């Protein structure tokens, strides 16, 4: 039986049920690196709840429209628990990770809420806003170092990655000196190409590192999150380690890629760059628009139905997996007219770049502050910023769960 036939058999749909199942993660088109995969875009226009086939031949539903994505992610009948049968894994590595004790990102309420609420205070708006001077200082230091005596650099290695890395290390109480160690592991955990063995190894390295760190905070506490979780006394070191790992990875790859990709998107849209430079007060809205337009969680969020649910006119049965593609939802013309264009003056606040529902990104206030400061400062301090290689030579992260660029050589 072919994959397509198997998908059809599992869903019991007839030959006239619509388009052939789309293979996901779907590849983006050459030459349009900021746009979602053409197949996903077509699904949104023609068959919003579409059949899809995953890498291992298993079937799932692809949810592509803004309203439907919000409905699924906001509905507790769709579970984030990867140990449930039918949960759609995007990679072999993802399936491997589901065999270890999950963090709250892969748990449902009430357990999810109990664990998440141990961290919400650390990322609340007021607390994060108070960090602005510190984030600004780190940003200026990095740019001083990058620009002193030189007129070109890799923006990823020297600015976009170190900034969120320094901030999350500070927040967690993790020594930044170890950054190469956890950046490498973090990369392996998020690569779509990693084997199950590589994922298991990286996961085990981080678990050991963070368990040791939690132990050390018991005798020498600081004011970081790891120390506070230790002081609470209601989690064991293993649980603290898995929360720390989640925050460390999430804090590294997301803002770093948004910073570099935002810079590139602005350089490719000189009219928008000019508008933003002319009126820096646009920065908050511009960051929301960049989050919408770029949507770096580019393969979507997986869920599995725990009972029969109707979404967008389709019945999804208990045990069937769904994949909510955030990037296509964020290009939905019904919500964001002319959504395929970057418009720094647009009201983009309804985007779902941080997800939706109770799992929506915990670190979003921090991501916003970091992005606003990083982009504004970069444009202000480097008025002649430009790409130092042909656009065609930029290496995009098609192979990673978090989209972006592997390197961004720039000059000024």
């Amino acid at each position, binding site marked *: 039986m072919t994959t397509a036939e198997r998908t059809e058999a599992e869903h019991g749909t007839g030959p006239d049920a619509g388009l052939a199942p789309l293979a996901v993660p779907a590849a983006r088109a050459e030459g349009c690196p900021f746009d979602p995969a053409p197949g996903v875009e077509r699904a949104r226009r023609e068959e919003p709840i579409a059949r899809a086939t995953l890498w291992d031949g298993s079937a799932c539903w692809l949810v592509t429209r803004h309203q439907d994505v919000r409905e699924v992610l906001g509905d507790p009948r769709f579970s984030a628990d990867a140990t449930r049968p039918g949960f759609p894994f995007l990679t072999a590595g993802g399936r491997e990770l589901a065999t270890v004790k999950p963090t709250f990102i892969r748990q449902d309420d009430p357990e999810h809420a109990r664990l998440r*609420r141990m961290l*919400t205070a650390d*990322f*609340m*708006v007021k607390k994060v806003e108070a960090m602005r001077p510190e984030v600004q200082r780190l940003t200026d230091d990095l740019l001083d170092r990058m620009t002193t005596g030189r007129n070109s650099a890799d923006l990823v290695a020297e600015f976009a990655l170190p900034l969120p890395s320094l901030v999350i290390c500070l927040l967690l109480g993790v020594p930044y000196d170890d950054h190469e160690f956890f950046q490498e592991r973090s990369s392996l955990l998020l690569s779509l190409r990693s084997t199950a063995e590589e994922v298991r190894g990286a996961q085990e390295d981080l678990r050991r590192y963070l368990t040791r760190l939690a132990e050390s905070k018991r005798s020498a506490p600081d004011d970081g999150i790891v120390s506070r979780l230790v002081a609470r006394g209601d989690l064991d070191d293993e649980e603290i380690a898995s929360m720390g790992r989640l925050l460390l990875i999430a804090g590294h790859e997301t803002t770093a890629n948004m910073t570099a990709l935002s810079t590139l998107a602005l350089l490719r849209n000189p009219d928008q760059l000019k508008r933003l430079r002319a009126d820096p007060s646009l920065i908050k809205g511009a960051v929301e628009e960049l989050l919408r337009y770029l949507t770096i969680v580019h393969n979507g969020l997986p869920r599995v139905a725990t009972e029969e649910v109707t979404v967008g006119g389709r019945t999804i049965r208990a045990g069937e997996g769904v994949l909510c593609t955030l990037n296509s939802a964020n290009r939905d013309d019904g919500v964001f007219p002319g959504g395929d264009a970057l418009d720094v003056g647009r009201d983009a606040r309804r985007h779902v770049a941080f997800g939706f529902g109770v*799992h929506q990104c915990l670190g979003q206030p921090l991501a916003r502050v970091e992005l606003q400061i990083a982009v504004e400062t970069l444009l202000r301090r480097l008025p002649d910023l430009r790409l130092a290689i042909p656009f065609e030579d930029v290496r995009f992260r098609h192979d990673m769960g978090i989209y972006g660029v592997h390197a961004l050589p720039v000059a000024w």
Partner: protein
Amino acid sequence: MRVHIDQEKCCGAGSCVLSAPEVFDQREEDGIVVLLDAEPPAGLHDAVHEAVAICPAAAISVEQADRAGRV
């Protein structure tokens, strides 16, 4: 307009505070939503509607006033 919040549903994402800081805040100890003004003035209604629309946990709801201004 009368605003209602459901602290049980709140996941502490903080998007309401960014939309309407005059109406919403977060509790110091756990980041859960706190209502500062249950009957905000008309000038803030758009911001409150935005907060309702973007709240990921559907923890905010509003009742509109009738013609006599009663909620």
